[in-house]
């Protein structure tokens, strides 16, 4: 699966190393030079972002395998290597990470101790990049676990009142999942060695192409992996850390948590669940789809009842994550593409939402919806931006969330119609809770302090502008992304087909005529991108 070595083999290591080196530089600057940290952190994260965008331009969209791959032995006697690579599935998550971090740094300033704050953010960026690029099971685990440390300190040191408990809960929940995953990945490598012979290896591609693991063992290991990722996503019964972490985290922490770190879970499900254990993924599909749909409905219902604006956005994330898992575990090309689209676009819209909520909190020092009212009168620009972002998050056609959710639902309809039907209600509920919250906070009379709220400054608008542009552009031209991810997604589905006996039959049996249609159009991206807007309008509006 690894494509020919590209000339730019420095690119992926640079994406990881630049933030880490930047964190080291920040640590070396004396703490009293408090004016240096922000520009320096910005320089580091922005240059990583530029590298990520450069990666996007150099990416060969016709190639299905891993590009820019590099490999270097790390712990040789156990077959652990520093293998990095990017394909159409991880590409946009890498770019998203590159774009979101500088925006998060620009969008919020810490109240105290700028030096460790920016240093931890840089560490977090490096570790997130590493997790998306790693193609070695142990290396992935290292980064997956490493992101906990900076986030723990970001929540615990710069968060709100209940921050200590939230930080600890966040750390332990994820670590509980990783504990099982660690045993699972060791078992994967050991059983692979026993089944295939040769030396111990943790190389993802090598194991996936010829696992040599018995069905029962593979299912058991898959459960260990899926549990770890389900906590990270989070899927519904395991989501209770998320609202606390989001509510207590500082604004930049919430933005990154929602935009990047939750995606580690869904990305993990795709890369280390579906790709590594296709048979187990097919086997577990009913459970995961049920949890996904449960998450969509439950997240939406609970969000409706929230009184805290930030907590509301946090629960809306639970619902959106449900769409991603729904799309991924439809195990169709369309569904997985939809899942990846939602991953990226949820990062953009929810990142913007958290920034906006942070701006409201800065002005009013409360996030209670009952305390806010009529902000539209005192802050019209803020209200306008908020409208756009809320509508995008609701899934209005023409804005960025719509294509992803539509494709995820299409995928679900193709394989598991009942789940798809229930999931659609989530779209309507999203409109309910978000628009209702908007209405309560921005409409009505501007009472008390709400009347004197300062409007958005140009600088604040500047921070959000790139996200707003992305919201519109990716809404109108989803093909920009779909074209680049399609070869990889198709290869992944073909991989599942090849490894699981009779998998393709189950899919077509479910669907009947629709499947043949989508087969016929081939490029699912263009077909749905234009055709979908008319049909989706009813549910979105």
């Amino acid at each position: 699966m690894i494509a020919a070595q590209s000339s730019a083999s420095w690119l992926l290591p640079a994406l990881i190393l630049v933030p880490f080196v930047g964190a080291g530089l920040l640590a070396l600057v004396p703490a009293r030079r408090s004016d240096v940290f922000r520009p320096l952190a910005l320089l580091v994260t922005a240059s990583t972002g530029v590298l990520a965008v450069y990666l996007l331009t150099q990416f060969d969209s016709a190639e299905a395998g891993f590009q820019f791959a590099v490999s270097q032995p790390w712990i040789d006697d156990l077959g652990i290597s520093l293998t990095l690579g990017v394909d159409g599935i991880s590409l946009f998550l890498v770019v998203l990470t590159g774009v979101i971090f500088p925006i998060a740094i620009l969008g919020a300033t810490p109240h105290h101790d700028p030096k460790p704050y920016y240093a931890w953010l840089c560490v977090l960026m490096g570790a997130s990049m590493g997790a998306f690029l790693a193609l070695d099971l142990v290396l992935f685990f290292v980064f997956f676990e490493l992101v906990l440390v900076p986030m723990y300190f970001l929540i615990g040191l710069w968060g709100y009142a209940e921050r200590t408990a939230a930080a600890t809960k966040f750390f332990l929940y994820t670590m509980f999942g990783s504990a099982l995953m660690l045993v699972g990945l060791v078992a994967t490598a050991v059983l692979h060695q026993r089944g295939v012979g040769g030396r111990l290896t943790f190389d993802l591609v090598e194991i996936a192409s010829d696992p040599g693991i018995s069905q029962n063992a593979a299912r058991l290991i898959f459960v260990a992996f899926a549990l770890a990722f389900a906590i990270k996503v989070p899927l519904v019964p395991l989501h209770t850390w998320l609202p606390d972490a989001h509510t207590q985290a500082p604004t930049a922490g919430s933005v990154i948590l929602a935009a990047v770190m939750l995606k580690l879970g869904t990305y993990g499900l795709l890369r280390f669940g579906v790709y590594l254990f296709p048979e187990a993924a097919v086997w577990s599909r009913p459970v995961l789809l049920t949890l996904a749909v449960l998450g969509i409905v439950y997240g939406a219902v609970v969000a409706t009842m929230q009184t805290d604006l930030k907590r509301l956005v946090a629960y809306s994330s639970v619902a959106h994550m449900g769409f991603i898992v729904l799309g991924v575990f439809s195990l169709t090309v369309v569904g997985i593409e939809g899942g990846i689209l939602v991953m990226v676009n949820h990062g953009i819209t929810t990142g913007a939402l958290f920034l906006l909520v942070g701006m409201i909190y800065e002005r009013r020092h409360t996030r209670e919806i009952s305390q806010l009212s009529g902000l539209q009168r005192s802050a019209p620009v803020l209200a306008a931006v908020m409208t756009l972002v809320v509508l995008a998050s609701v899934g209005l056609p023409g804005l960025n969330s719509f294509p992803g959710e539509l494709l995820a639902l299409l995928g679900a309809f193709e394989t598991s119609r009942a789940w798809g039907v229930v999931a659609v209600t989530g779209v309507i509920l999203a409109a309910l809770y978000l628009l209702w919250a908007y209405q309560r906070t921005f409409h009505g009379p501007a009472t008390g302090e709400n009347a004197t709220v300062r409007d958005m400054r140009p600088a604040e608008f500047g921070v959000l502008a790139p996200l707003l542009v992305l919201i519109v552009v990716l809404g109108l031209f989803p093909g920009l992304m779909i074209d680049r991810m399609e070869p990889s997604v198709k290869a992944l589905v073909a991989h599942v087909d090849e490894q699981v006996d009779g998998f393709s039959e189950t899919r077509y049996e479910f669907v009947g005529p629709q499947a043949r249609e989508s087969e016929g159009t081939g490029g699912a991206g263009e077909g749905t991108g234009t055709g979908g807007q008319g049909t989706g309008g009813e549910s979105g509006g």
Partner: protein
Amino acid sequence: MSAVTVLAATLQDVLVDAADGLSTPSIDWAGIAPNLILMLGGVLLLTVVSVLKRRLPVWFPAVWTISAAVAAACAVVPLWQRFTDSGPESLMAGAVGLDGFSLFATVEVCIAVVFAALLLSDYLRRESLDAPEWYVLVLLSASGAVTMASANDLIVLFVGLEILSVAVYVLTAMHRRRISSQEAGLKYFVLGAFSSAFLLYGIALTYGATGSTNLADIQGFLSREVVTQNALLLGGLVLMLVGFGFKVAAVPFHSWAPDVYQGAPTPITGYMAGAVKVGAFAALLRVFVVALGPSYRQEWQPVVAALAVLTLVVGAFGAISQTNVKRMLAYSSINHAGFILLGVLAASTQGTRAALFYLLAYTFMAAGSFAVVSVVARTGEHRQSLEDYRGLASLRPGLALTFAVLLLSQAGVPLTVGFLAKFYVVTAAVESGFDWVAVIAMLTAVVSAFMYLRIVATMYFGEAPEGVTAPRIPPATTLAIGLAVVGVIVLGVAPGPVSDLANDAVAQLVVAAP
């Protein structure tokens, strides 16, 4: 009956040999050089200091001890060369084994001695307890630990254990103004003597069953003969396990550990967590995995699995309910012992090597952590509770950061040595088919992570109370903490060279040349 016959026959052989005139074995002085350096270092230090009592500077014993430990570690290098060139050997009529395993363990003990000397020098000055005896006892006990790790004979092993233990009993009780130190010393001594008796009785039964105390002979005997009535051997095996269990603080033989760890002078606690564990685990690995492993693995593995699970669970859950940081770390050392038992349980070269690596990692983590505890506790060791760490990050940012790194390493966070140590033992356990024990182990790691995070959160997220001054960090302690943190990170990021060495550090038993 058969065992009694064997016993009688052996006794007869011995008597006949004695009648022929005792032939003394040839002594390979170079082969036991590291051990000699440590032991002579201790004895010479005592002599020199008593002769030149008033004319020596205060730093002299500490520098002497560190030099002795470094010299012993350097003496390992030519032996390592000799072992890689010509393979493992058995010295002194089969009493001492010279192999990668014993050499690797020797270096670990030396590292623990260096840390102990660095920390003691500041500690003794602060507590006004300056006396060279501390260092003498540390060197002698180190020699005992090395003897245990390289013992090829159960009697030699027992002698090593006693040299190690007696010195450490005294060290534990050496803080003469702290009542808890004396209490800990007495407790450790009584229970330790008890466990030595168990071990000795186990050795006797094993001798009765196999006709030898030599590990190579025992291994050979068990592979040649089929023992039809193995009650004697099983009894010996269990009693030896009890004895080792006491020494490594495996549950249910752990009850002394929290009290002793808490009561002992803090540098000695760190030393116990390093050197004593290395010696005891090395002996356990040598006897159970190497001598009894090939033919008796099936018999002892279930017992060790139960011990490991109990140790992991009790260590983790015991730790989270504590409010005294030193006691928390004592319980966490029980949890770590459970992880090392996973390596023993695997009963493979992978497992042995993973256990050795874990011991090395834990030596660094324990030395650094207890050094911080010692600094924060201040004179008289009164401030050990979690409350005393509140807001440490604002008072002493560097100290708090290093402690956080050491604690996160103990929790098993990647890019620290703690993660790789856990990774190695888990890999070894899974390879030997003990995946369920590995799962339990990792889950207990999450439980103990809660405890480590509690300390980190108190240091970082709490406000320092009014009027508390920052603790003073003396230079040698600074050096020790620095070395520990550098070790934890370097070994965590680039374990390659060390894990390659550990790869060769497999214990092998060689029958002594007649």
